């Protein structure tokens, strides 16, 4: 995976899904190597259904929601993140930013 091959992480996740590290592999590969924002958000949302307490994924999802201009999804993600990590302080972006294309 450290060669930058996201497809390899996808194949590994399908081949051996028993281990969490494998199942979330494609999601983390997208964090590292990027990709289409729409697909990435879907992938992270899917991964968070399987692993609902992955705070780092939730953090990245909130950022992606903001980048995509989906403000309500951003607030939801941030609220989940606050509940999961109550000791952390997050500054919420209150205005909808301009849509940032990947």
């Amino acid at each position, binding site marked *: *995976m*450290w*060669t930058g091959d996201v497809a390899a*992480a996808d194949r*590994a996740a399908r081949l*051996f*899904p*028993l*281990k*969490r*590290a*494998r*199942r979330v*592999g494609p999601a983390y590969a997208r964090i590292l190597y990027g990709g289409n924002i729409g697909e990435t958000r879907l992938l992270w949302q899917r991964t968070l259904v*399987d*692993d*609902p*307490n*992955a*705070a*780092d994924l939730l*953090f990245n999802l909130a950022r992606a929601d903001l980048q995509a201009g989906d403000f309500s999804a951003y607030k939801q993600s941030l609220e989940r*993140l606050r509940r*999961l*990590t109550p*000791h*952390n302080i997050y500054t919420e972006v209150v205005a909808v930013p301009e849509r940032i294309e990947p």
Partner: protein
Amino acid sequence: MFAVRWGWSCDFLGPISFLLAVCYVPYWASAATAPRWAFLSLALPVLLVVRDIAVPWAALAVVGTLFGLIWVAPNVYEAGYVFWLYLLYVLAFFIGRDLPDLKQVFVGLALGLWVNSAVVVGQYFRIFDPLLFRGGSNYAALYGNYIPAGEAAAMVVIALVALRLWWPIAGVLPTLLAGARGPAVAFGIAAVCLAWTYSRRLTAMAVALSGATLTVLVLLHPDPLAGFQERLDVWRDLIPNLTVLGHGLGSFVIDFPKYQDHTNALQVRFEYPHNDVLNLAYELGVAGVLLWVMLLLRAVRAEPCAERYALVVFLAAGMLAFPMYMPVTGFLAALCAGRLCRSRVRVGEPVVGVRAAVHEGDVDGRCGRGGSRGEIVST
């Protein structure tokens, strides 16, 4: 009564142990564990083909019990993964129960650890490509992390010392002394227990040597208490959330971020609580703790033998790490537990053949060398 059936399969355990110790696929995620679990998944059922029908039945009983627990687990994949590991341990337990001894297993693992030690030395002198043996720590070699490697080495070395089989030990030492402190402590505890059976002078020497080794390892470490503080933080968050029935198989890795107060869930994700008892207690509740206590009692009550001391290392290392969830240490501990729980032959019960007489030699349930106690009633 099962001993005659073993025959050839017994001879394969040495090579299987060797292959398990060196099994490593470079450039894979989980390069050190996944191939080993896969290897065990293939090797153990093949070995059991020659076993008596009682074993599959007993395994099924355990499978049924564990399967019930899967349904309360938060993630079916994780539950299936841990369930599969436990199933492999059940198979290894039954294999160990009827083996004449585990000498060839210890030697096979020791020879495999020689290869690991060679890589450790190569890493020390920067001979090997660091990506090829990529791990979470220095000198991880074929284990991804020097702690599981050190635990396996500690279990094997103490068993070889108890067997007075000296020649394989030297090649294992680089792995044992690669820098991991937990395995060194566990080895020291087992060494003191072993020395205690001989003399107080030897015990004092074992204490001094273990203390000196640990002191050197601590002094050489850049931040000796960092890992321990992190473990304490995990335990402080985990203990208030223990329940009687547990949270289900494989639940720790999924659930624990919810309870992380002393550590930041955004920065660190724990796959294990670095304590086998707490892990069992969290996932299986009281049943898991009872399982562990039974293992401890078996190790405490057993006669002095190699398997007992290997199990002492396993249990002690499990206080600060997770040897129960690592393939080499878990497999070896299951074999040792099986060997210590071996079936007793009642006086007057017929034993078939000369080989059976040797295999069931320690009819009083002690685990000395098979046949050496001479209490066979009939052959």
